[in-house]
């Protein structure tokens, strides 16, 4: 299993809570698409990448700012340079305010087979207050068009902790379940520094709900989704049977992936487990590619011990936990033998579920995942 990530760092307007790398544009400049294609070629020529890929993911930013043609050209280049499996999951993120039925049809034709639509809430006033550019109605229209275009694997992103309204959040979840999407990502809002929302809170213009209220919301949301047939498979991700996001599962299994575009990341098995990060400035990205160089900002070669910790840190996000056989095959010993202290602490607190196949955190352990991970460090 290996994946490819492509970053499209442009948005019509930045949301108030977002600290991702993105630049305000109404469309994706062709120069950026050209640069992406150059980068693809450069990496392909280097020969240092996994043999085959099962997933591709367009993230952002707002990938749905790409025209059908642009998408077509990128996917064509991808399949030309890399072995993308026939059965591959090819996802893109999509903002309801940026697509038409025609564009969605074009994406589908180009090869996209999974959509992840950013909704956040079904309440328009709330959407407006956090700087989203769409309404709930627009989301429903987009969903409708997507289905007409042939998409059968669709995710909706929802957020809680935006307001004090537990009822509003649960209403949003129910509404999306009613609409029958296959996958729901339900996040709690993270106040990141250097975002407009953070500044508002700092200035006291917005009082975010208190910790306990957010926890209540989250717990109620998990229960609701499970009863509606969306099982929790990761801390913030829920899916109908068989519709887990394979691209993201690869991250949590600590598998290899390539990353293209500004600020994209990659990890590949070289002599060591090696992480790459691209530059996060658009100018620098263009400049390096023009000179025929990979736009790398950082290369981190990890010691086995650190690679092992990453497997724990990522694997324990999954409700299924860390696969013992896979771990043993990768490192030569069992998880429990590698981390006796952590195991003891987790058992003592009853935060852990141990089976022959896996080691996983239970709901309490997942709630306090940071604390749980502390024992492995």
């Amino acid at each position, binding site marked *: 299993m290996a994946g490819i990530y492509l970053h499209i760092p442009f948005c019509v307007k930045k949301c108030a809570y977002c600290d991702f790398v993105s630049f305000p544009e109404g469309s994706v400049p062709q120069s950026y698409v050209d640069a992406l294609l150059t980068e693809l070629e450069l990496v392909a020529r280097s020969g240092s990448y996994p043999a085959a890929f099962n997933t591709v993911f367009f993230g952002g930013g707002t990938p749905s700012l790409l025209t059908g043609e642009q998408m077509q050209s990128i996917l064509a280049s991808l399949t030309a340079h890399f072995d993308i499996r026939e059965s591959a999951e090819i996802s893109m993120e999509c903002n309801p305010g940026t697509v038409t039925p025609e564009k969605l049809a074009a994406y589908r034709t180009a090869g996209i087979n999974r959509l992840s639509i950013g909704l956040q809430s079904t309440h328009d006033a709330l959407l407006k207050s956090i700087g989203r550019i769409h309404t709930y109605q627009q989301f429903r229209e987009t969903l409708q068009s997507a289905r007409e275009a042939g998409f059968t694997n669709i995710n909706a992103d929802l957020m809680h902790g935006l307001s004090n309204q537990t009822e509003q959040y649960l209403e949003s979840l129910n509404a999306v379940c009613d609409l029958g999407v296959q996958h729901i990502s339900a996040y709690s809002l*993270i106040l990141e520094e250097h975002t407009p929302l953070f500044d508002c809170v700092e200035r006291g213009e917005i009082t975010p709900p208190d910790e306990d209220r957010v926890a209540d919301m989250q717990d109620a949301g998990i229960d609701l989704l499970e009863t509606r047939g969306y099982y929790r498979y990761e801390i913030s991700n829920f899916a109908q049977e068989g519709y887990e996001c394979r691209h993201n599962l690869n991250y949590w299994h600590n598998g290899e992936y390539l990353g293209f575009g500004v600020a994209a990341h990659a990890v590949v098995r070289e002599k060591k487990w090696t992480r790459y990060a691209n530059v996060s400035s658009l100018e620098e990205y263009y400049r390096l590619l023009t000179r025929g160089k990979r736009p790398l900002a950082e290369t981190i070669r990890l010691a086995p011990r650190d690679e092992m910790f990453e497997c724990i840190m990522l694997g324990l996000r999954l409700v299924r936990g860390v696969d013992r056989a896979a771990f043993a095959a990768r490192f030569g010993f069992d998880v429990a033998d590698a981390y006796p202290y952590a195991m003891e602490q987790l058992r003592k607190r009853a935060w852990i579920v141990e089976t022959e196949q896996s080691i996983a955190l239970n709901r309490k352990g997942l709630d306090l995942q940071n604390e749980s991970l*502390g024992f492995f460090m």
Partner: protein
Amino acid sequence: MAYPNELIRNFSIIAHIDHGKSTLADRMIEQTDTVAMRDMSEQLLDSMDIERERGITIKSSAVRMFYTHTDGKRYMFNLIDTPGHVDFNYEVSRALAACEGAVLVVDATQGIEAQTLANVYLAVDNGLEVVPVINKIDLPSAEPERTAQEIEDVIGIEAHSAPKISAKSGLNVDQVLAAVVKTVPPPVGDPDAPLTALVFDCFYDNYKGALSYVRVFDGTVRPGNRIRSMATGHEFEVTEVGVFTPAPMSVDELTAGEVGYIAASIKSVAETKVGDTITSADRPASKPLPGYKQANPMVFCGIYPADGAQYGDLRDALDKLRLNDASLSYEQETSNALGYGFRCGFLGLLHMEIVQERLEREFDLDLVTTAPSVIYKIVLTTGEEEMIDNPSNLPPVTEIEHLEEPVVNATIMTPSEYVGALMELCQERRGIFMDMNYIEESRVRIHYVLPLNEIIYDFFDQLKSRSRGYASFDYELKGYEKSDLVKLDFLLNGDVCDALSTIVHRDRAYAKGRAVAEKLCEVIPRQQFEIPVQAAIGGKIIARETVRAVRKDVLAKCYGGDITRKKKLLEKQKEGKKRMRQVGTVSLPSDAFMSVLRIN
């Protein structure tokens, strides 16, 4: 060849903070060409950063100047600069004892302040002639005539002919120099009599060891002489004598009437005590100069390194500070909450603050300090008495007959419009009103008896804020009085946290207990379990709050681009936990202890 006594003048300057003492000293140094202009800096005699920043003098220093008077004669001036603050009262009294006169500087826009008055009385008690000087007459709000009248009314010395100056611009500073010659009497003393030299301060020099700052009253001292400390009986051989220019400059001898320093390979300033009399080992004086006493610390607190691993560094830093500050005392103590640290004794609050600041600044230490405490007297049921400076050491209630606490005579001087607010403050602090009188129409002097433990934390700040900075305050220890005191403990998840224990008056215990418990709930981060925070007197719980358990501690999102960042975040979290103090089962951030201090 000894300088003729009739041409020597030894004097100090007395002034309230910001009334211009150091500036006047600077001008005198300049106008006597003692220091070349290019070497001048502001507050020349205050060499410590902290002195310059706060505009205060902590250590005494001295400078020798030569002034040519209108009579054509060349006078030797020895100016001894003294700390003005009440904490250093004893040092001030010894510095004054080394002089024949004092220049009293009063700000023409402010009038006389409580501490100034205390120091003037000290000067008069020591038989000094006072030279009044009215400063800041160049300011628009200056009222020199009124200030002169106030000096006459309050102190009872003639002040209308006092020099009216601006130390800042140098205006009329020559009149001050002339007044010193005229008013301050020359020293009397016999250079051939047995040596008596008063130690008024000391300073640790890395090469020469402890330098004793002395005023020679009788006799002569030269390098090679054997000298004896009359307080300790220790004997030393003099390696160097010198004067202050203001930098130390060695000379052949110091004779009766002169001010300077003696170096005698003394290892620590603790061996050369302020107030001590130095005499000759071969031909000792029959009795020491009067006034020596051991300076006793009045205020205590625990000082701990924020990071337990810095204990050794803290000990070294205290050792070094003590080389230069004989009034700082400390001994090792152990707290169940804070680990290894020191119980430190200070002359007063300012002294405590200064030591803390110097430890943090000069030695780059992160400290945790516990609530300041005074020394309580415990009368046990057996009739025995015990003194304790740490609330944790209080014996069980059943063994205590009663408790006594130190009280002070406090003098407050304030513009009359703030009297109400200040009396309220004193009342809140369990003060007992003694009397009040008008110094003049709009200025009042109030006397209160106040428990020392009510003024050791933020009384001075409160006084200043409630009087918009106009009131001044001075106190002296009155003695011990019986009081209904109780030990207030705080329990975290059922365990007493000794570093938070305090002794308070019973009437205040409930309010204080509640306030501290609430504050602790704010500063203690949520942990994996619920933490009851309780305030208790003896076994009785008087307040209870709860730190709720953390319910979610997890990063909502983690995808391909987040992994490195997320790892760093976890490392930071782990690092933060390491710096927490473990009290029983509860992790406490170091600043929890400080935040509790700020409650009243």
